[in-house]
């Protein structure tokens, strides 16, 4: 077989897929179940996988499909979301002004991201947190790369709107 042994796939990608699913499902139990299921499915399909396939993007596609199935029930989504905000850790009030502002903004951004429609949220996380190509995101979400791009754009717009009236951390590099 020209493909690498499956153990190396687990070693290389398990942590990332787990983190992705944790961010998307908000619950360690769900991230555990879904990440295991992702790799068991991948293992079953491993022999049939095209040799030049992008393994990482392929794993994200499987994980994304599982996450979408998981949230097919809207009530499950709401229940999960209801638990999110409580789990956020607060920033040490003694930290420097700029750090504090960064963390506040971060909490706000996370709140907006968590409240996004599922497809936008997935597209945003895949692009901004995992650096996937739009081609791969489109495959994961069963849409075109252009639609994937549009989902990310919508997500960014909502985040930006969500920060209206909030003083953003300064960025030396902003021209």
């Amino acid at each position, binding site marked *: 077989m*020209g493909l690498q042994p499956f153990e190396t796939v*687990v070693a290389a990608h398990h942590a990332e897929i787990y983190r992705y699913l944790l961010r998307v499902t908000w619950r360690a139990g769900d*991230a555990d179940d879904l990440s295991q299921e992702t*790799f068991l499915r991948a293992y079953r399909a*491993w022999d049939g996988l095209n040799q030049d396939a992008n393994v990482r993007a392929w794993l994200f596609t499987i994980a994304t499909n599982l996450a979408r199935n998981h949230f097919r029930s809207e009530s499950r989504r709401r229940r999960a979301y209801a638990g999110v905000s409580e789990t956020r850790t607060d920033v040490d009030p003694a930290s420097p002004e700029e750090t504090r502002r960064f963390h506040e903004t*971060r909490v706000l*951004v996370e709140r907006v991201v968590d409240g996004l429609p599922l497809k936008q949220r997935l597209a945003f996380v895949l692009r*901004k947190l995992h650096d996937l190509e739009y081609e791969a995101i489109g495959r994961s979400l069963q849409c075109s790369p252009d639609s994937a791009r549009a989902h990310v754009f919508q997500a960014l717009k909502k985040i930006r709107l969500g920060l209206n009236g909030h003083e953003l951390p300064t*960025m030396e590099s*902003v021209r």
Partner: protein
Amino acid sequence: MTTKHPSCRAIERDLVATATGDVESHATDRVQRHLQTCEPCREEFGRYRAVDHVARGLRATPPIDALASSRAGLESRLADLRQRRVAYRIFPSPLGQILIGRSEHGIALVEYLGASTSLRASRLGQADDVEAVEGGPELERLQRDLLDYIAGRRRDLDWSLDWRLASSEFARSVLEATAAIPYGAVSSYAGVARRIGRPSAVRAVAQALRWNPLPIVVPCHRVIGSSGRLTGYAGDKLGLKQQLLGVEGVKLHPGRGDVSVAREAMYALGEGASEYCLPTCGDISTRNLSVVTLFASRADAEARGLTPCVDCRPDLHPLSAA
């Protein structure tokens, strides 16, 4: 809602993309030119830069305690799956549809499906302790090997085997003894029973071979009745036995529905001997097939390290090849 100038609206997507690092080079210049003339967009650009900055901050990966235990759980489920997994392939052959199944230990199953191409109807599909998955390129190679074998282009299948589908230790010993019968040779059920040290278990040997999970590879087609009749094969597939023996050059008497091996046209090896004989040598033609192995050709016998008998000299008086 603030209303935006059309030119600002037109450039909004590119502006967001550029500010958040999703750059497409042709857009960057346009955005920069627009920013030089538009103060509100310049401010927007800055805010999107900040959003991107914060979003990238979300990548910071705090240690997760549950990660290690999730990985351990996965490894154990994978190990279990790996144990049970059999990758299979179904393909047409001159012997009908054939299924081959391979586990991580080796080939676990070769099955004649007749005209069916369905996994569900197969022995593999019905086994409950295995997980059947469709196989990839590795099985294509095995398919080629097997088709070459059936066509007579290949004499041995040097596959590693997984014996797990052998139903018992006894069955396994029968299969291993059968696997030792060389290409182009035939032995009898009684002969196999003798070789595994159970000379009276002839019927049990026949039963074990009837359920041989690895036909062709474990050449149960080379095992015949002591009378020389083919008797049976994989249930009701006597025709396939005939075909496989034909491929190996074994001479057969067609007979009326009861095909038998043409003993008088094959070389013979007595039990325990290291020399092979003409079928007419001494009393070998009258000895029971439980103690005689027959060979289709001198080459087949000599491939096993046997030498020609010094009395009947099969090397000087070979049987006609016809």
